[in-house]
């Protein structure tokens, strides 16, 4: 799942090396925390959060078939 987020995000940003994802797991939910280079923030969020929304849509649909836990994607600043 972490890899999926990376494959989605890396081609979109200017600094692919600085894409980092950490996971936080509790019994019924998983939070993926995504951090990117400060100047790439806008690229992963998009106008009105369009890119972030598109990314979440794909991740959530993949997560649903992967495991039963609630999944979240956070973008850290």
């Amino acid at each position, binding site marked *: 799942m972490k890899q999926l987020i990376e494959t989605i995000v890396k081609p979109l940003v200017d600094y692919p090396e600085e894409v980092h994802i950490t996971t936080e797991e509790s019994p019924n939910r998983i939070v993926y925390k995504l951090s990117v280079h400060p100047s790439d923030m806008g690229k992963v969020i998009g106008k009105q959060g369009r890119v972030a929304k598109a*990314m979440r849509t794909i991740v959530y*649909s993949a997560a649903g078939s992967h495991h039963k836990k609630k999944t979240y994607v956070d973008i850290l600043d």
Partner: protein
Amino acid sequence: MKQITQMGATVEEAISIALKELDLTREQVDIEILQEGKKGFLGFGSRKANVRVTEKQLEKSDQEQQSVQQAMEELNEIESSEAVAIISKSEVENIQESTTENLQSTLEVEENELIDEKRNDNTVAIEHAVTYLTDIAKQLDINDLTIDVEEKGKIINISLESKKAALLIGKRGQTLNSLQELTQLVVHQYAKRFVLVKLDVENYRKRRQESLEQLANRMADKAVYTGKKIELEPMPSNERKIIHHILANRIDIETYSVGSDTKRYLVIEPIR
């Protein structure tokens, strides 16, 4: 080699101005029509004709010709994007949606006219898009993905096929639309000029259009029958357009969209 691009009210006029400028006769030049002139309606959508006139001569090296060509193309690109900007500005007074939809249709019209000119330089962008999609598909456990790309002027149609198509489409095409949006972004990084990416999985778009048409007619009937307006669920602009279009001929109802951005939805109102 002398080359000049010339604007004019009509194609003929542009050519004659250009010939005068170059001091050549019509037989001595190659004429390429970049844009047909258009009268427009009430001043909206009118457009000047644009021709490129090149003196016939073959000795020059290819490279030089190419660089001139490229410069010219860039120039044209700027011009055409400006034209679009002007058109969209003049329509700002109309409701937001009609602007975007008109813009889309102007793009489509332009695409047909400029079809000969654009080519070859989207290959890199397409390659990146294809790898991007295959990479994502692999992460989604889809290994039998086949990708078919078709270029049509400014539109790149990408059709995907897989046994697990449902996973790529998602509820009401949500995943497909998201993928389309992201692929568009990737393409934009590498494309030299504006292109539109359209994604399709196993003819989903066509099936969706059919079911939307059915839904539209059913809801319109219901609106007339109950005498109350019916609000549909939020849909992306292309789907709303389908419904507007199919119900445009009916005189007993009216359709319009309310809300903003992704929450924009369509309302069918019966006319008493």
